[in-house]
Each structure stands twice: as C-alpha cells, then as structure tokens.
C-alpha cells in the first residue's frame, strides 16, 4: 500500500512536470506526426517517379548527409547552449565580460567543428559502405554545406532564445524545430510534390534551394548558382533574425532575473 502511494506520488510529480510545460505536451504527438508526414510525401513522390532512384543512386545518401549538416549545425548551437543551463553556469558567464553575441560566435564555431567531425565521419562511412564519394561534388559541396549549417545556426539561436524565455522545459524544441521544416525542405523529393500552400512556405526556406541544387547537380550535372545565391540571401536574413531573437530574449532574461535561476 505504501509502495503504491509512493508510486502514485511520483506519477503526480511527472504529471505536474508535463502540465507545467507546453513543449512537453506538444512533443507527445509531434514525433509520430512528423515521421508520417515526411515519409508520406516521399512515398507519394516515388509512386509517380519510379526512375528517381535509378537515375542517381547516391541522391538519397547525399540528401541524408546534407540534411545531417543542418541538423548537427542546429544542435551544435542549441544543445551546447543548454549545457550552460544544465550546469547552472549562465550567471557566471554573463557576469563576465562575455557578450551575448560573442557566445553566439563561440557556439557557431563549436557547431562548425562538431558538424565537420560528425558529417565528415558519416561521409566516410557512405564511401566505405556504399561507394558514394560525396566530395566529388567539389566546390559546390562547400556552398551546400555552408548554406545548410547557417540555416541550422539560425534555428539553433531561436531555440536557445526560447529556452532562455521558457526554461529547460522547452529544450525538446531543439529536436522538434528542425524536424518541423524537414517535410518542407524538399530533402528527398522536389517541393513540387507538396500542396501549393506549403510550396509557398518552402520557397522561404534556404534548405529547399539547397536540396534542389543538389538534385540538379546529381541528376543533370548542372550547378544552380541562382538557387545557391537565393539560399545565401535568405540565410543572411534568417541569421539576423535568429541573432535578434537570441539577444532580445537575453535582455528579457536580465529584466526578469532568469539568468541566475533558469532551470527545469
């Protein structure tokens, strides 16, 4: 009886945690929904384009590798920032002469290093196991890589800002945010497969231009310089917005006293 009471008390504790954090509630349904959406679009595209895979055997691998660049880039900013919250170190950091934008610069750097290591290893595995040398894309690969990682940084800054605002209850946004735009980015299929309204949204995402350029290169050996420049231009805007959100939430945290007591 006593044991059941204690179990009940702990269940109550976890329900309190869930009730007090809207990101955790959203997350319950989020992952299954996003998986279905992503693979549903891919399935629909493959039904009508059976020659897709035959034309370029490495295209799915290239898409997966490049998608990972954006994913790692974003995690490299947001999750590394969370480390400071986990260790309750934010007060020490921001009582030092460290500027918020300097922290962002450090996060970008460490994100770049982590992504180079992580995605570099994945690229090597793709070569060893599937004989797919992604580096044969040459200089274009660098343009694709930089566009994707910068987009990841922008999202990472917004997520870090939201966690500064809502506390660590919002940390799962780090994973959720990037998967929210996955179906719209045209990673494994052209965005023309999307419903028209979503195509409009997709045209605002640098990743959509990057993956379109990747497919053009692999299918037709054509470099879509226009798409790459469009992606870069949108990225400049998004990075500016990401920094603005981060700096704004940092200032709000100073107004509301969250730098000393941010946590769960």
């Amino acid at each position: 009886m006593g044991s059941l009471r204690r179990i009940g008390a702990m269940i109550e504790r976890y329900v309190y945690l869930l009730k007090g954090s809207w990101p955790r509630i959203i997350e319950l349904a989020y992952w299954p929904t996003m998986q279905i959406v992503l693979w549903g679009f891919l399935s629909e595209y493959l039904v009508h384009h059976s020659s897709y895979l035959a034309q370029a055997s490495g295209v799915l691998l290239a898409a997966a590798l490049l998608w990972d660049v954006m994913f790692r880039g974003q995690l490299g900013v947001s999750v590394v920032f969370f480390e400071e919250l986990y260790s309750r170190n934010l007060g020490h950091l921001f009582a030092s002469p460290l500027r918020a934008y300097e922290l962002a610069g450090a996060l970008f750097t460490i994100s770049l290093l982590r992504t180079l290591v992580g995605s570099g290893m994945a690229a090597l595995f793709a070569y060893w196991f599937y004989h797919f040398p992604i580096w044969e894309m040459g200089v274009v690969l660098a343009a694709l890589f930089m566009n994707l990682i910068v987009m990841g940084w922008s999202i990472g800054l917004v997520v870090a800002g939201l966690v500064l605002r809502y506390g660590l209850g919002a940390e799962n946004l780090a994973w959720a945010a990037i998967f929210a735009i996955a179906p719209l980015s045209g990673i494994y299929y052209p965005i023309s497969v999307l419903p028209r309204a979503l195509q409009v949204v997709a045209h605002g995402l640098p990743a959509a231009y990057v993956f379109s350029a990747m497919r053009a290169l692999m299918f037709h050996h054509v470099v879509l310089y226009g798409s790459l420049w469009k992606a870069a231009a949108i990225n400049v805007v998004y990075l500016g917005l990401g920094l603005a959100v981060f700096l704004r939430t940092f200032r709000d945290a100073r107004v509301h006293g969250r730098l000393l007591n941010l946590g769960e």
Partner: protein
Amino acid sequence: MTDPAISVTDLSKRYGTVTAVASLSFDLASGRVLGLLGGNGAGKTTTLSMLMGLLLPTTGSIRVLGEDLLRHRYRVLPWINFSSPYVDLPHRLTVYQNLRVYAGLYGVRNSRARIQELARDLDLTDLLDRPYGRLSAGQKTRASLAKALINHPRLLLLDEPTASLDPDTADRLRTYLRNYQKASGAGVVLASHNMLEVERLCHEVIMLRHGRIFDRGAPADLIGKYGRETLEEVFLDMARGRSQL
C-alpha cells in the same frame, strides 16, 4: 579624490506588483567591506544580481569606479567578479579547466601562474584535475571563490562566501579574504547570514527588510545603538520587528 568602488543611487527592482528592492542608495569606498544583512527574501541576492549586471533594475543607477554599469556594462565587468552558492561552474570540466576558461573570459595574463597561486592560497592544488561536479560542497565553494578572484577584481561581490564550509576552513577563508581586500584595495560587498562573519569582515552593514534599508552603520555602532551584545541579536530584533527605537 578617487571614485568609490561602487556608488548606488535610488536602486529599485519590481516584478509586476511585487517590489523586491526599493530605493537603495549607498557608496562603498575602495578598500572597504560592506555587508548586506537580511532574512530570506529581504532583497540581498536581488541587489547583488543588479550590482553584477545580471539583473536590470527598474529604476536607479550603479556606478563602479566612476563608470555607469548600466550604460557601460562591458567596460565595467572586467573589474568585477562574484561568488555565489546559487551559481555553479560546469560540472564536467575540471577545476583547472574551469579556471582557465574564466581566466580567458576576463583576459587574465599568465593564467597558469594565477591559477597555481589561487590554488595554493585556497588549498585547491590537489583538486585542480578533479571535475568540478565531483567536489564536495565546501570544495566547490573554494573553487568558486578562486574563479571570483581570477581577475584580481577591484569590486568583489560575495553571496554567502563561507556557506557549507566547516568552521576551520571558513575561518581561514575569512582571513584570506581580509588579507586580499587589504592588499588589493578592492571594495567588497558581502551578503551573509553569518553574523560573526559580518562582524569580523565588514566596515559597514546595511540591514535590509522587505527590500528596503532598515538601518545601516558600522557593526559595533549598530550593536551599541540597539543595546545588544552581538550583531545576531540586532538582526533577530529586526527580523522579529522588536527594534523600534
């Protein structure tokens, strides 16, 4: 005439309708130690947070060595440092790695020598290679104090600096702080519940109650003013509302 280590004018912090600190004003000369006394929720930590630039006041001004902290935050912050049991250092980093990081953030030259010096003074030499997260509470307090002193601060803000230390270590730490303050000429603001510590270290005390200054003065003067034997008795009078002179 030299600028005060810190000069605070009409400092207030409100959260909605709740007033955490109201109309706080004081000057602290370099080479002096000011104690902030008060019960839980009296506004000590809120005040310290504003003095170190982590919390924006609702009204008022803070000048550190003549510079406006709110307007020139990044010019002032290299002169300040703090230690608080409410803020940790990264747990997975060793004590040495943590101190290296902060030496870098504060632009300390020859950081290796400075860390060795602090480790010797604060009895941390054998702990330098140990992850911060594996230290005992008392060891963490000393490591945090080493971080607070890494940049030879001209204004040192200490929130319960001897919390969780045994009496012997606490006593040695107080002696060290007093020597540091005398040698460096730094101004020190100290928030503590330890009245003996405040009596021993502070030249002046501000007693806070509900975010407002209840009384202020040298510890001996306050004890005399209230006709008590110790500062702790004065504090209890204030906390229990018995000190209507």
